[in-house]
């Protein structure tokens, strides 16, 4: 994908349930700089629905949301 740099950090929340999923994504975003990309691995329907929404709600940009049969991949660009 053009214009998207390598993720600065990867967070795997496949073993977690709400709200720990979002907590860990938040902590991952804290650890990177504005403009950098956080890659998130999720499993199941609930995080797929809620994590992009939560990220956008806190001013971050969902660059990519890639569901699949098993694990879903999310790329978030950290906002200001």
């Amino acid at each position: 994908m053009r214009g998207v740099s390598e993720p600065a950090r990867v967070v795997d929340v496949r073993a977690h349930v709400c709200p720990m999923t979002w907590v860990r994504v938040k902590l991952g975003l804290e650890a990177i700089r504005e403009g950098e990309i956080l890659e998130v691995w999720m499993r199941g329907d609930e995080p797929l629905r809620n994590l992009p929404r939560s990220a956008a709600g806190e001013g971050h940009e969902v660059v990519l949301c890639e569901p699949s049969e098993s694990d879903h991949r999310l790329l978030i660009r950290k906002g200001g």
Partner: protein
Amino acid sequence: MRAEMGVGAKKRALVIGAGGLGCAVLPLLARAGLETVVLDDDTVSLSNLQRQLLFATADLGRPKADAAAERVRALVPGASVEARLERLTPEHAFDLLEGIDVVVDGSDNFPTRFLVNDACVLTGTPLVHGAILRFTGQVMSVRPSETACYRCLFEEPPPAGVVPSCAEAGVLGALCGIVGAWMAWSATSLLSGADAGNDLIVHDALAGTTRVVGLGRDPACAVCGNTPSIRSLLTERYVEAQACVA
């Protein structure tokens, strides 16, 4: 309906939920000499411990109502606390309100709040409602059919996902004590026969401010109005609609 209480009989409070608010309210009501019944069907989890002051680390995994009752009995000599490991349901609400002088609602979801409100209005049981979210808390007292009830203020539950539950949005732990203190204070005020009600206390812990919003009973309220449409507790009216699993 509530039974006649004899002279000198202790007043009895039903506390809905042994969460952040329930944990703050229970020791206060016990120290005020009230008998309490606490309702909660959940177990203690690690993320509870940041604000639910009746639970020690060693209580993880235990039923919350049991652990709460045990701790209150250890704190307050002679405390009468009955633990019920159940949720409030439309089918059993009236049974649970038998012999109850005041209901203190510290529940964390809208269907339960509306169920509690309606059950209290229909039985004429005084109610204290409290709620917390992020840094904000609110408290109101209800004298059914005399002052505003919860439904006068919030007609219907919001659709799922519109208002984040505690689980999603987070909450300042100490806020439970502030709101819980007002709830206990409101409960004893109601029981003393004071003219409580028609005030919504709203506190912002980040700004450090408190304001009071004046209320009034809505004559068109569906449950306590002049021509109420809600005259029984129909299950379908209180269906749990949760945005997330936890």
